[in-house]
């Protein structure tokens, strides 16, 4: 079983607990998580990470399942960043130049701290680097197995007209549609409460919004069909990457009930718990983004409990930190809320280190937050009156 795991492209096995890791698509995030997402992982996150994760999946020829009710999932796929073919400059090169520079006197409590986190720098990077300024070529996307879920029906592939040229894929798409128990077209079957949207006619017994049930069903079918279950024995083992964008947004509210009722959060809790069960029993990872800023009273604590990794990004823009000089290098704070211990007693949570994220033209990265030294001359000091026996016309470097 373990030997088989090593053959899956785009994954690596962790020695200590036999975990199978797959890259998140962001080198800095991978090293923070100890190499990548454990297979069968589960997390809440934001769009840029989301894009990178799926670009990585496509680069590694993993299957991808994207679901969203807010935006068309195919437009998410169109925005995927392109892979950088040449290896980026390694961190060791950068740290070498740092070592060579003149010694600077720093406060004693920081003196013995390593400049590069040694625990993370040992980790072999298994992913690609991506260029956010360019989009992934259509060719790459065409050659990948991508499944879209829009809340109305499953579409397989990027564009049906393109698909027709690729025989194998088209067969697969038909196969897929056969397996989903959908009876299209939904729009025509709506009752008085349907407002023209799907699922109203197929009431779910457990979820107050049947969309959750349908999505779970589709994911389960996809896992079954692609033979991603642990018990399955496919010829070539691969990993399924499931992405759910803006889960729990107003688009996911039950149709008949107004705004955030208790039941709507229960739906979310139940959905995430069921998805945990699904993902834990398959070679799959699920990345979910939840627009928490839209929630006031509803708490996500139970969802976090059911997830393996939970992260939160807080942007500076629009807050009082936006114009803070010392934070000008960063776009926002990155909080690692939870990093569960899987197959182990120890979580790799790095402790109370603060992280921030940077969004450059080409790259998205997560770094330890370093405040720059306060050596800027802001002009005020020159006007300060001098005390004691010092000369009035003091030069800046005089004492």
């Amino acid at each position, binding site marked *: 079983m373990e030997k088989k795991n090593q053959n899956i492209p785009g994954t690596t096995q962790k020695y200590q607990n036999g975990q199978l890791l797959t890259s998140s698509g962001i080198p800095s995030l991978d090293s923070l998580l100890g190499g990548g997402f454990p297979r069968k992982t589960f997390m809440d996150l934001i769009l840029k990470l989301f894009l990178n994760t799926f670009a990585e999946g496509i680069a590694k020829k993993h299957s991808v399942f994207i679901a969203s009710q807010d935006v068309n999932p195919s437009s998410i796929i169109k925005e995927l960043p392109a892979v950088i073919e040449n290896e980026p400059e390694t961190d060791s090169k950068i740290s070498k130049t740092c070592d060579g520079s003149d010694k600077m006197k720093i406060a004693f409590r920081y003196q013995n701290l390593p400049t590069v986190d040694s625990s993370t720098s040992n980790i072999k990077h298994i992913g690609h680097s991506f260029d956010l300024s360019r989009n992934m070529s259509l060719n790459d996307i065409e050659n990948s197995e991508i499944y879209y879920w829009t809340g109305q029906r499953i579409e397989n592939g990027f564009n049906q007209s393109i698909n027709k040229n690729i025989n194998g894929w088209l067969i697969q798409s038909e196969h897929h549609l056969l397996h989903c128990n959908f009876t299209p077209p939904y729009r025509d079957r709506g009752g008085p409460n349907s407002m023209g949207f799907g699922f109203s006619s197929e009431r779910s017994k457990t979820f107050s919004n049947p969309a959750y049930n349908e999505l779970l069903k589709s994911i*389960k079918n996809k896992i079954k069909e692609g033979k991603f279950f642990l018990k399955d024995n496919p010829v070539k083992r691969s990993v399924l990457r499931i992405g759910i964008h803006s889960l729990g947004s107003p688009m996911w509210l039950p149709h008949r009930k107004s705004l955030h009722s208790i039941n709507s959060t229960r739906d979310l809790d*139940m959905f995430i718990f069921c998805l945990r069960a699904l993902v834990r*029993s398959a070679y799959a990872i699920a990345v979910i983004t939840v627009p928490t800023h839209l929630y006031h009273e509803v708490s996500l604590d139970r969802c976090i409990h059911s997830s393996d990794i939970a992260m939160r990004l807080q942007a500076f823009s629009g807050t009082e930190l936006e114009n803070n000089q010392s934070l000008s290098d960063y776009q926002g704070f990155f909080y690692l809320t939870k990093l569960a*211990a899987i*197959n182990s007693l120890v979580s790799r949570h790095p*402790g109370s280190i603060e992280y921030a994220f940077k969004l450059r033209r080409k790259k998205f990265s997560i770094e330890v937050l370093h405040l720059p030294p306060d050596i800027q001359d802001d002009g005020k000091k020159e006007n300060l009156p001098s005390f004691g026996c010092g000369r009035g016309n003091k030069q800046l470097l005089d004492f």
Partner: protein
Amino acid sequence: MSEVILEIEGFSGPCWVCKRTLIRSSGCVKQVALAAASPPKYHLDTLCSLSDIAVVTMISLSDPRNSNPVLSALKIKPQDKIISIRENLTADSNFILTHLIKQILYEKNRLCLVSFHNPVEHYQYVGKKLGYDLLKAVEDNVVKIVEPISDIVENIGLEENYLQEDKENLVKCFYHDIKRCLSDISTEETQTYLMVDDLSHLLDLGVDLSVIINFVNYCVNFINNDRVSVVLNSHVSSKIDEIIANNLQYIADVHIEVSPLNTGRSTDVTGFLTVERSTGKSRYHYKAFDRGDKNFPSR
């Protein structure tokens, strides 16, 4: 005789030769371990006699109830019928459960494990690190596992069993499953433990609070049979979870609470551990290692 290097953290126990008690509270001790079958004729630690080689195997160490830092802090006895575990917020009480399994298997007792939160695979990996083989115990009919987290996968889309509309019926079926497992493994001579890993996941399945409390009541009634004890784990993050956990705390003989540090996270200490009995309350800080946990008394 093959040589294995073991890294032992926070180990404590008497030396076989000079009977000196060794307590390691910090740092990591590297010792040379020879095959388990060899008689204990060497000193346990090079500190006893510098010329001797230490012989240590994780499994043949002295009674884990004394030597294991977690189990010696918990001091669970057969008289403790209801053990409730509460994990607060981001803390993970899994180490308590896996250590209790170690004690149960060491005492040759029986266990019915109901797992909502982690699949069996997880317990197996952790168990191997702690020195027991859970799957082998399952084969030997010492342990029975009810695994809703795997069974649910079958129910997705079909809305049966765990995902059925009638939540009361769900809990009833679930209870009968557990009852069957308990009667399958229990014997006259041994104590049988029922361990539920995360009762609060019943809330995620849409079960009402009153039904869950009812279920707890039924579970607790198992102890009418003197040979049965229950270990109920519950996670607390919302108000409703808290009601379940408080209820468990009220009925428990031993209440164990695991919380994260109030001030954030640290690389040296993972969190707080509180063990409460009718006789008193003891508090510890704990630090999780890959081979077990270490406790420090705390005020």
